[in-house]
């Protein structure tokens, strides 16, 4: 292999920071994803706090109109693209290979590339607060995003960082599609896949199909902004409604991209802590697939008031309402699972049960929106944020917290504090209802969303005050969660391999798992194989607590690599180059960045895949 034009040796045993920069271990990448995304969630939370403070009473003057508009845009974009999606990706990374009995993902370096690209996009978006962030709303309706309306760099940052985040998501999604189809342990048929893996698989397929649409929409917007194309230019016959279609063709599948992994987590946690297998495994899988398919046929329910006409609205009303059916199937099957079980109310279980209770509220208000005739009164009022936070906070975030605590022993090797966990659960549970439930009231009382202030004579002050109070509770709740995780990650009690009496393969290996995951690739004989093993039809050894691993050194793992990081760094530089394209030499910075990126990819593609010692024997 030394004949290749670039033969920088692969980093063999890097230490310290290089260890993390060059790692291609799916578990470490998962942790990187998780920590970064959680920080992003906090930043979105701080933005939310500022908004709520501004709205605490009528005609307050804490942030200006311009800043408020940036706040909600950045808050929405952050929470969706920088918090929930990458938090899901953190679980994909950490959990899926363990659940399917694999030693890594199919493309370990591509995986590292996804993370670094995500980080590049996230940093880029967040840094745009310096000098003015985007303020066109998280769905950036044309023509508010046009140069005439919005000449600053805020929108450019938003566009370019979403494009980069798209690259990251696509790379991860391709990776997980192949991993799940192709890296399953012997005997792990598709219908024996753990539910979380199944939902992630469906999510990955949704991602792969949905992201190109927003990529195209953003490209069109970029061309309009940079080169005066006419896509959304009304003066030349362009249609601003086209943007809405393209955005929501992506946007609605996107909300299922946010919720399906969450549903997967809940479907893992509930059986474990009910001591029962998931009720109706096949139907739950099927329902997930149907949701994903139907999710493509409903996008115009975000556009009921745009004037598509009665017929189109009627069609999208029907399709949207029907999507409640497969979702209901899932909810009922979770109920069926706990029914007759033996429920242990651990912290992760509480979050999962909380998920069901809260997501139901959000789902029902979703169906209320679907009734387009009455949605004419609700659309663009606070009733929408009420719905969206019940499904996203009460849904996605609750499930993610459930997952964070459920797999905590696995990724940290330590136990967290149950008591503290429960207290913070109740704080968050109460806090979210105090914060978000009043939004239903003010919404129906005619308060539009995205207003930085309101008059005192509208009757909205009381419930807005309450909502703001709720954020305080949420804040304390999250501080407790952070303390619990942070403190115990370092100093918690050591966790046994299987603290919850789990059902799936990740609990059959030590906590934290060794680098190679499985000393021997397991052979799978049925659904919930690990549970069956423990029940006595034992064909597998239960590992001693603490795990062995002495024999692990003859397992070949792919080597760390510099190039994913270098390629992502190139992309980051190029992205800045696109925004500041007239710096010094026109497009010079972009060219430099692209060159670095290309060198990275090129060196990557020529890098020996396996460990260099082996290759030198050729």
């Amino acid at each position, binding site marked *: 292999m030394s004949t290749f034009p670039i033969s920088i040796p692969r980093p063999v045993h890097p230490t310290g920071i290089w260890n993390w920069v060059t790692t291609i271990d799916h578990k470490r990448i998962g942790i990187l994803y998780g920590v970064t995304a959680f920080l992003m969630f906090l930043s979105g939370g701080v933005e939310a706090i500022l908004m709520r403070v501004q709205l605490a009473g009528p005609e307050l003057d804490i942030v200006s109109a311009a800043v408020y508009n940036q706040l909600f845009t950045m808050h929405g974009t952050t929470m969706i693209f920088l918090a929930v999606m990458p938090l899901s990706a953190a679980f994909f990374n950490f959990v899926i290979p363990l659940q399917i009995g694999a030693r890594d993902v199919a493309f370990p370096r591509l995986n590292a590339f996804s993370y670094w690209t995500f980080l590049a996009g996230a940093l880029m978006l967040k840094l745009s607060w310096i000098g003015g962030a985007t303020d066109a709303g998280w769905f950036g309706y044309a023509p508010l995003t046009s140069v005439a309306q919005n000449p600053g760099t805020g929108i450019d940052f938003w566009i370019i960082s979403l494009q980069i985040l798209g690259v990251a998501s696509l790379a991860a999604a391709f990776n997980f599609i192949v991993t799940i189809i192709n890296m399953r342990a012997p005997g792990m048929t598709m219908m024996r896949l753990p539910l979380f893996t199944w939902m992630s698989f469906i999510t990955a397929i949704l991602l792969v199909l949905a992201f190109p649409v927003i990529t195209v929409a953003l490209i069109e917007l970029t061309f309009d902004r940079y080169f005066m194309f006419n896509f959304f230019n009304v003066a030349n016959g362009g249609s601003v409604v086209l943007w809405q279609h393209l955005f929501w063709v992506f946007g609605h599948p996107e909300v299922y991209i946010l919720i399906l992994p969450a549903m997967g987590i809940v479907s893992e946690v509930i059986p474990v802590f009910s001591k029962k297998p998931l009720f109706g495994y096949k139907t739950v899988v099927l329902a997930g697939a149907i949701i994903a398919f139907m999710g493509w046929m409903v996008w115009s329910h975000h556009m009921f008031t745009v004037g598509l006409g009665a017929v189109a609205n009627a069609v999208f009303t029907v399709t949207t309402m029907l999507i409640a059916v497969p979702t209901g199937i899932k909810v009922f099957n979770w109920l069926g699972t706990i029914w007759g079980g033996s429920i242990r109310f651990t912290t992760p279980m509480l979050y999962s049960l909380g998920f069901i209770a809260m997501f139901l509220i959000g789902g029902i208000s979703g169906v209320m929106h679907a009734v387009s005739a009455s949605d004419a009164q609700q659309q663009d009022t606070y009733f929408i944020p009420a719905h969206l936070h019940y499904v996203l906070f009460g849904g996605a975030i609750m499930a993610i917290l459930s997952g964070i605590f459920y797999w905590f022993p696995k990724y940290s090797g330590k136990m967290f504090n149950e008591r503290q966990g429960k207290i913070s659960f109740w704080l968050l549970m109460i806090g979210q209802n105090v914060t978000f439930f009043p939004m239903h009231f003010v919404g129906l009382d005619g308060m539009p*969303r995205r207003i930085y202030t309101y008059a005192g004579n509208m009757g909205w002050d009381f419930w807005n005050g309450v909502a703001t109070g709720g954020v305080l509770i949420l804040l304390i709740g999250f501080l407790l969660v952070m303390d619990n995780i942070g403190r115990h990650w370092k100093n918690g009690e050591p966790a046994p391999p299987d603290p919850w009496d789990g059902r799936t393969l990740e609990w059959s290996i030590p906590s934290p798992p060794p680098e190679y995951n499985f000393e021997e690739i397991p052979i799978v004989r049925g659904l919930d194989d690990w549970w069956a093993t423990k029940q006595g039809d034992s064909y597998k050894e239960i590992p001693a607590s603490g795990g062995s691993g002495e024999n692990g050194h003859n397992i070949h793992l792919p080597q760390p690599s510099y190039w994913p990081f270098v390629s992502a760094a190139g992309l980051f530089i190029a992205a800045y180059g696109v925004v500041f394209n007239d710096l010094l030499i026109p497009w010079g910075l972009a060219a430099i960045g692209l060159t670095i990126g290309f060198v990275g990819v090129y060196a990557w593609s020529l890098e020996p895949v396996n460990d260099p010692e082996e290759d030198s024997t050729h």
Partner: protein
Amino acid sequence: MRLQKTSKTSFLLAATLLTLLITACYPDHNQSTFDPQGPVASRQLGIFWWIFIGGMIVFVLVEAALIYAMIKFRARSEFDNPAQTHGNNRLEIIWTAIPAILLLIIMVPTIDTLFYMYEAPKLHQPNHTLEVIGHQWWFEFRYPDPNNPEKEIVTANEVYIPVGYPVPINLGSVDVIHSFWVPKLAGKTDMVPGEENYMWFEADVPGEYYGQCAEYCGTSHANMKFKVIAVPENEFNAWLQTQAASAFESSDALVQEGAGVFKSAGCTGCHATKTVVNKGSTGRVGPNLAHVASRRDLAAGMLSNANENGIVNDALLQENLRTWLQDPNEVKPGNLMSSGAQVYTDPDKKLSEEQISQLVHYLSSLK
């Protein structure tokens, strides 16, 4: 039978509770969707209650089942060994079918209402089609000129409608997407640049109805409000006639001076004081000021000139005009007057206190 009764009672209970919760603590609910004053809003509220009942039933049943199961099946000992049931096909079919049926039932009135919203109402009286044009951040209204069908009359931020008549409305925008919404009369419809949208509403009783832009449209989206004032037909016709007249020309010296400043300071570049225009002609950048002194609010709902009965109070109006002219940006962040008018962008052309007083006098004479 009994089921019907209980669900009806519980529905009434829930509805009262909800309405109370939302409206109890405050007397003013100017944009409440629970207080419909016209047929369209009533139908929409009706359909809301339908889906609300459906949702409540699902909510109560599912949450109850969840809580019951949580209590009933909580672990009593470490060694509980529950039966390992894997599923039940009959149950699966039942809980697929029931929601589907429930939804199909709700779909019928929904679609019915949907078409009702779009249907052109039979007009009892022709030619009262209201034209609404969105501007950042104010509303332009146009009616056909009662004296000349070829022409239109223009006004802004406040519009009268005849009680008991359906008002067909055409919606458009000159810049970005806005949304036209008077909660007590009807749900919203967007005002999309480059497209023409249609809706209609009708007021059952005379009154003042609050409206607000409902689609995010830039910096001062929160400050884009208007009023619809429903009056009996004869009053409406009288109003149309006053609106059709051009600005009142007073011989008062101060007003005359003000009119002079209005021209010399470049206000006429953006504001017209003539109301009759050709059909479909493009409007000015700023609101028509021919009858600005007759409006209950200034600057799209930012400053109120009227007392509780809706009578414009001259002193208040003058004070408001002064506040506005001194620094429009203070009243309404980002508004296009302070960023576009030379008297605000060019420090050399700044209006003097005296000029402002003259302008205030002039403008407050424009009844």
